[in-house]
């Protein structure tokens, strides 16, 4: 918005320039229409409406591409169902109680695994980011473990935790925890050292500086990190639900595959996408609500 106004002002000025300041030497040629600034500028903001319209266009392009492939019979409908078929199935499935049960159990698993990871990773990450000794103790092993694929832990998890709810939660936890510790530590290190020093000159002890400066300062970045991590949690959920389960969205997707119900696979994926989008929006909202000072 701001930029659009500024840009407009600048154009007006440019237009008025030759008339006002030209004086007697101004020739007719100087009054030609100023050339317009190009709309696409590096890093510059665009009007809010322009952004929304472009985003909608992007979705429409995807939909158009899909429609051409499916309605045009370029791909067999067994492999790629038509959009209207998926929409139809979407409402069909959401009309059944069983599907809501799948959604419910999946949301529960993601929330539990993610919450557990946050609960443990955030304090550890905060300490590792604040004190170099803690960093040396915590980070090298974490760096090592995080490159181990969480999925490869599945057999081990089944040995440890069986195939019950804990197994799914544990996989999501393992997938998120190590990354989260490192990301929180990195967020914490970005807190301005000057602010901490300012608190020292105001009489803060080290503990008080952590409490009254490091923790409040890191919160907005922390929220953003959690928001990113939640996306990962959903990915690990689907992996967790592909093996030895009989409920959840991942299971619904697997079952649909067995009967070649690709439309149901699409619905499962879209539902997970929508859930992710929804939780993402909640985080974005909370960020604005709690941190108006950013």
């Amino acid at each position, binding site marked *: 918005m701001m930029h659009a106004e500024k840009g407009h002002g600048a154009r007006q000025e440019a237009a008025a320039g030759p008339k006002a300041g030209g004086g007697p030497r101004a020739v007719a040629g100087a009054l030609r229409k100023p050339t317009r600034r190009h709309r696409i500028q590096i890093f510059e903001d665009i009007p809010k409406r322009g952004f929304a319209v472009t985003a909608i266009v992007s979705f429409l392009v995807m939909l158009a591409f899909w429609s051409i492939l499916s309605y045009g019979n370029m791909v067999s409908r067994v492999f790629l169902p038509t959009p209207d078929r998926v929409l139809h199935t979407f409402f069909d499935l959401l009309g059944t109680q069983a599907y809501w049960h799948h959604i419910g159990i999946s949301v529960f698993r993601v929330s539990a695994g993610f919450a557990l990871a946050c609960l443990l990773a955030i304090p550890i990450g905060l300490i590792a980011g604040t004190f170099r000794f803690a960093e040396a103790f915590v980070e090298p092993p974490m760096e090592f473990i995080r490159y181990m694929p969480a999925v490869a832990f599945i057999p081990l998890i089944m040995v440890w935790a069986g195939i019950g709810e804990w197994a799914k939660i544990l996989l999501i936890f393992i997938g998120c925890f190590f990354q989260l510790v490192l990301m929180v530590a990195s967020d914490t290190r970005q807190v*301005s050292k000057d602010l901490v020093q300012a608190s020292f000159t*105001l009489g803060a002890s080290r503990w008080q500086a952590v409490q009254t400066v490091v923790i409040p300062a890191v919160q907005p970045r922390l929220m953003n990190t959690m928001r990113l991590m939640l996306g990962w949690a959903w990915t690990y959920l689907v992996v967790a639900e592909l093996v030895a389960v009989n409920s959840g969205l991942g299971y619904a997707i697997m079952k649909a595959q067995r009967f070649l119900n690709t439309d149901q696979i699409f619905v499962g994926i879209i539902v997970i996408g929508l859930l992710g989008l929804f939780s993402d929006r909640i985080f974005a909202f909370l960020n604005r609500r709690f*941190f108006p000072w950013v």
Partner: protein
Amino acid sequence: MTKETLAREIRMETEAAGHGAIAIRGVGKSYRTGKTEFQALGNIRLDIAANEFVTIVGPSGCGKSTLLRIVAGLEEASVGEVTVDGVAVVGPGADRGMVFQGYTLFPWLTVRQNIEYGPKLKGVPILERRAVSNRYLRITRLESFANRFPKQLSGGMKQRVAIARALANGPKVLLMDEPFGALDAQTKLEMQEALLDVWAKEKTTVLFITHDIDEAIFLSQRILVMAAGPGRMIGEYQVALPAERTPEVREHPDFLKLKRELASLLKHKEA
């Protein structure tokens, strides 16, 4: 009166009178990178009386900021010692308030909460805290901005809050590290007057760092000139200008004479 109580009385009196006297005794600072050692500060000796306003001027990299940070306790001297009212500095503390060049207000606190930060840490009850913040909001003329967040303030206002925040903590000494360096010329002049106004009311010791000669003369009672390689004092000037500094002081012949002297000293050193 026994000898003991007399001694205590005297000690208490000198403590009350010695409100923020700084003594810098042979302070040096060197950094080691690999095998080469870089000496940032050599043997600095300096005494600053209680309630004095002293400015250190010098080019960038002469170590003046390092010296100030050593007094603040944010950096450790390699040799020597700093004392405030006879007590050795071993780390940062509430007795030495500081205003930094960069903006260091806590962005998640309002102007009032920033000012009350120090008293709150000390456990001052809320009503007293309110009284303190009201007083400093008034002195720095920020009353109507009490509930704003720092991001809603201009640069000059932010530094006014930073000064208010430091003073609200009741420090003996106010350390200022080029606090107006990032401000535009007009705001800078206003802030200098505001600072003198506040200092007249508060009478704390001020140690002020700048590379702006005009600023140094306008503000201080005494000016010390530093040069680099290693950081050392190369000149000391008493500012013989009226205590009441009005903008007209800048036209005063003594002001201009001192300005020429300082400029030539600094220029000489750079050549």
